[in-house]
């Protein structure tokens, strides 16, 4: 009991816990769409593309969230534009744009004299170092994302799984597609401070991917993703406290471990259920 309560006597741990719950929820909700649409690489791209935005925020002395947000949303829309307007394939467009943006960030970073705001804190983030002010803006942004998803629930679902029929029925599929990219970008921005550029894509897709192993019904899948995302983030946070190791990496490892367990024990892919099927076969 002490193991669970003791960390909560520290304000920084409570803030980290709230951030973990928020990030776990938002990532799982948006990540469910990302995984079902097969767009995991977009998450990777947008997180790296946020880097020049972080450097810009430092140079122009604006909030980091704003810099990262502008860069991430701009990149997501840019990728969408290239995909829709040219014959370049999706993965190629993403690869070209995100590495270009990341290089821009490194270039700019290296050009600033006496820049000691550390590169590593951008790359790896630290959920334990979230201030109350950060938390307030994260909650506001996270709530905005969840509200948009709830309001456009049917439209997003329809456009995601049957874009042709959705277009035929008069839905602005193109617009929804761009909106979806913006949602992914903002989700990444919300999660950046918790786990950093390199690990953030795992927060987005791992819980949803795990849920996909366990259920095929959309609503149940998303609910499972939220449970796994939030549970994994909380457990990972505690584990990092008990073990005194980096929090972001621990959270991602816990979620990856849950994915591994689902792979082995899950009802459809699981080795256990396969064995059972084998023995029950005539």
């Amino acid at each position, binding site marked *: 009991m002490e193991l669970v309560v003791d*960390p909560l006597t*520290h*304000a*920084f*741990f409570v803030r980290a816990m709230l951030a973990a719950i928020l990030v776990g929820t938002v990532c799982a909700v948006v990540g469910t769409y990302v995984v079902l649409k097969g767009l995991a690489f977009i998450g990777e791209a947008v997180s790296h593309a946020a880097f020049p935005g972080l450097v810009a925020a430092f140079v122009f002395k604006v909030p980091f969230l704003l810099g990262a947000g502008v860069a991430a949303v701009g990149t997501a829309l840019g990728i969408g534009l290239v995909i829709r307007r040219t014959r370049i394939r999706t993965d190629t467009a993403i690869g070209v744009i995100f590495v270009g943006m990341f290089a821009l960030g490194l270039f700019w*970073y*290296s050009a600033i*004299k*006496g*820049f*000691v*705001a*550390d*590169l*590593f*804190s951008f790359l*790896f983030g*630290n959920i*334990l*170092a*979230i*201030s109350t002010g950060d938390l307030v803006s994260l909650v506001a942004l996270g709530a905005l994302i969840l509200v948009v998803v709830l309001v456009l629930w049917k439209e997003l679902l329809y456009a995601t799984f049957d874009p042709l029929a959705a277009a035929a029925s008069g839905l602005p599929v193109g617009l929804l597609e761009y909106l979806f990219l913006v949602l992914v970008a903002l989700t990444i921005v919300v999660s950046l401070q918790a786990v950093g550029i390199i690990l953030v894509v795992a927060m987005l897709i791992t819980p949803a991917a795990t849920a996909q192993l*366990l*259920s095929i019904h959309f609503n*149940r899948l998303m609910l*499972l993703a939220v*449970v*796994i995302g939030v*549970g*994994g983030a909380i*457990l990972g946070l505690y*584990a*990092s*406290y*008990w*073990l*005194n*190791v*980096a*929090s972001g990496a621990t959270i991602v490892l*816990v979620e990856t*471990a*849950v994915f591994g*367990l*689902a792979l082995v*024990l*899950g*009802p*459809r892919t699981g080795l256990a*259920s396969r064995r*059972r*099927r084998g023995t029950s076969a005539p």
Partner: protein
Amino acid sequence: MTPRSPRGIVVRLAAGVAALSFALVGCVAADGSALAPDLPSPEPGAIRVVATTTVLADLVARVGGSLIRVTSLVPKGGEIHTFDPRPATLVAISEASLVVVNGLGLDDPLTDLVGTVGSKGPVLRLGDALPPGSILVEEGLANPHAWLNVAHARSYVAAIATALEAILPAKASQIATQAAAFDARLAELDAWTRTQLAAVPQANRKVIVLHDAFPYFAEAYGLEVIGSVISTPGQDPSAGEIADLLAAIKSSGARAIFSEAQFSDKLAHAIADEARMVVESNLYDDTLGDAPADSYEGLIRWDVDRIVAALR
């Protein structure tokens, strides 16, 4: 497909993950204190003090003795610019009755972190304790490595003593005695350093540094730093900057290139090979090393021995 309730799956998953975490708890060892073994161990009721680097932690520990329990935020051998704080570090900050930082741009991200996490006691910025006019500024940026001039380290010690006396007024005389004893040793160290450096011939006193950590040392003990290879840790020089540096080395006749133990010495060796220079890549600046460089005094003696050997 075998039908199974999602709830059953979640329960089994949770059990599996819990088992895995407990297995992990067993295999990660606790990290020990990085400070020198000859320091007195904290007495019961000792207050917690946090310093950003092991060097500052050692200075604080010498002044506070057994009255305080000191933790360095950046571990021994750690790089202050690429440092990712762990949970126990943040616990130490939140429990600290005093937080000691260098300032002058050395540990700003860490000082911000202290502000975010919140500490019990005040933050002491040692750079502010330097005598007026002694801070070295280049291109508008202060150089933070003042403690490598032992005289400045004595200013740090005086500021630490004042801060600790304010927090522990009942123990003020004990703190003053400990600070005075340590200050006397530092005065001796300063004189010893001067004697050692006096043995270096005047013509051999031009040096190149990997990272600009030694201007205070050079100013105090009569070396001339011709240039540095990297301006800020983590930023590699451009081809043009390396060419400029090689030209400066050639025209000045600089003899040795100094680098700290925590940095890769690849660049230093590449430049030294081209310019036929001696490389001494095992110096310490903001982190302590293993014995005998595991205290501030040990660090200065270690660096001075190596610098003198390279230049003689």
